[in-house]
């Protein structure tokens, strides 16, 4: 199976360039994402950050109290 894949990949012109292209693509995505994160107002994310805390209202926070 591997040979089959390798043969076909080998027949593509300029495949050596693919890794570089994919890396550039990949890194560009990362930079755009960082740029977005840095420019988003904090309050936009507040709701999401609170999602884990909204699932059981009135729960005791610390359940590790001494045996009564």
């Amino acid at each position, binding site marked *: 199976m591997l040979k089959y894949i390798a043969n076909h990949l080998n027949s593509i012109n300029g495949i050596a360039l693919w890794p570089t292209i*994919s890396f550039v*693509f990949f890194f560009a995505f990362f930079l755009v*994402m960082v740029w977005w994160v840095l420019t988003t107002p904090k309050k936009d994310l507040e709701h*999401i950050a609170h999602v884990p805390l909204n699932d*059981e209202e009135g729960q005791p926070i610390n359940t*590790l109290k001494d*045996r009564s």
Partner: protein
Amino acid sequence: MIERFAYDNRPVRAFLWATIFWGTVGMLVGLWAALQLVLPQLNLWEWFTFGRLRPLHTNSVVFAFVGNGIFAGVYYSLPRLLKTQMWSRTLTLLQFWSWQAIIVSAAITLPLGITASKEYAELEWPIDIAITISWVLFGINMFGTILKRREKHLYVAIWFYIATWVTVAMLHIVNSYAIPVTLWKSYSGYAGVQDALVQWWYGHNAVAFFLTTPYLGLMYYFVPKAANRPVYSYKLSIIHFWALIFIYIWAGPHHLLYSSLPEWAQSLGTVFSIMLIAPSWGGMLNGLLTLRGAWDRVREDVVLKFFVVALTAYGMATLEGPLLSIKAFNAISHFTDWTIAHVHVGALGWNGFLTFGMIYFLVPRLFRTKMWSRKLANGHFWIGTLGIIFYTIPLYFAGFTQSLMWKQFTPDGYLVYSNFLDTVLQINYAYWLRSLGGTLYLIGTFMMVYNVYRTAKQGSFLASEPAEAPAMEKESREVSVSGHWHRWIEKRPMQMLFFSLIAVAIGGMVEMIPTFLIQSNVPTITSVKPYTPLELQGRDIYVAEGCYNCHSQMIRPFRSETERYGEYSKAGEFIYDRPFQWGSKRTGPDLARVGGKYQDSWHFYHMLDPGKFVKGSMMPPYPHMFEKQIDLKNTERKIDVMRKLGVPYTAEFARTANDSLMVQAQGIADNLAKGGIEIDADKQIIAMIAYLQRLGTDIKVKPLNGDTQVKP
């Protein structure tokens, strides 16, 4: 409209019990294996020798302890984060039982010597298929739950779960590619250098995507819950996520520095490993800073104590990992106990303590009570922490000692410790102390087991937890386009899955495809010939015994290694090795060029009772090889499978393979008889000797004086 539903706590409880049970078993096996290094008599029968027990320890801790821990945490947090119940109870049950069945089959097959010998992927092909099925069931259930959620936004923990699922699926399928020979034996689809690269791409990312990303997801859920405050910076969590999955996948080759892997691939591994410090520390700080303003509670709450140590251990391990990926460090650390210390900071500290914290958090909630004893839980925390310290520090010392002794030369340029055994005996004390550390850690675990048992007994289990949430409204198009694009992706789990897959697949392909495509990466050596049938059978016994757990077959290009073991290893020497046997640790000496170094009779006596033959050796004896016969029934099939994989045997050769096997075996038996040793030619030890005598001889440089008798 408010909808009423219920969270099902039964799968959470089931996975928690499984986590605790298998965790205890895995740690017990680990302690047993650790003690075998100081008390070789603990190598019991053929089934419980170090080479077979060590994979059982690693597999049970990784896939049984941490694996069940992941599922327990996910089955608890996922429905709650999405305000819905799990999509299918049937799938949950099937997944639970299939996973436990896989663990049981691993616990049976590994001691029987049924192994693919790829570290942390030792299980043979039928079990590999079962793992795939169980993992797919988990994925369907997870995505089904995500699709019918009542919370629009996917919290960051869920992204980590998604990335875990998709990457582990990819890693497992690619690395397990093999051609079956029999029901319980297969040959790897890759050979030599390529096999090593695929394996360490897998091995490294098993750490990344099985031991790290799912646990980061759990961290992002349970730390804010236990601290009762949101994560320190949600923005940081987004960067943490994308940076981590982008970078992690590239770092695998750092396991193969100074090996025969092409230089560019090694450098790629180093660069990405160093870059990993940033997201890893970002994540650790994000977790720790969540406790800002709540540090006083860490004194009171044992859950938070466990989490703080877990995060600190994560920080230490993820700083050390990149450092070990720098060649200058790696030259010292690789093949020594330093690596073992490093992984245990992660395993005992990060995974273990995060799991314990999660257990102490969940059990009182599931059983609607308080923890039976806070004192006992605190005791567990302290004895566990001491256990980690006692485990790792001696092994760091052992690692430095080994490396320095291996590399020390006299002023005249000879190795000071030319006898490898000297370097083993020197670190005996560290192995004892490490066992003590393991014992302490295990005692802590038993304390937890008892505490959990008493808590469950005093409470009453809440099988179904009622909840309510507004139904998710269909969003109008205008709203969704006006938001930020990341908000767009957050709401779309399928797209998220797709992008995560693209991210990890690109990294994986760039790393591996060139090695497969470009001929010059693995230069062929004309004198390297396929194994003879007898050597192949011997090699399969070597694989089954797990010799790679203690012996490497990779001589690095250092003078200290070429002096000790011979010419450094070349990529072209391994083209017929399926699977590769480079190993990752030298508890015993490297064997890449052991062929011709000793006489057949030396190997005969040595394998029969190493401790008696070489005073102080901790190697297990292999008397069963002297009783059992070579399995001649499958020789033909083995040669046929190898032919299919491209090894240049002829079709006729497969038919007559057993004849040629017996001729070679008889030759060895006759040779042994000259020294007064009576043994039948069809015994396994003969095949083993044939394989060992072949190792590295294809391009071996002959000793100048022609003397093949070297002192052990």
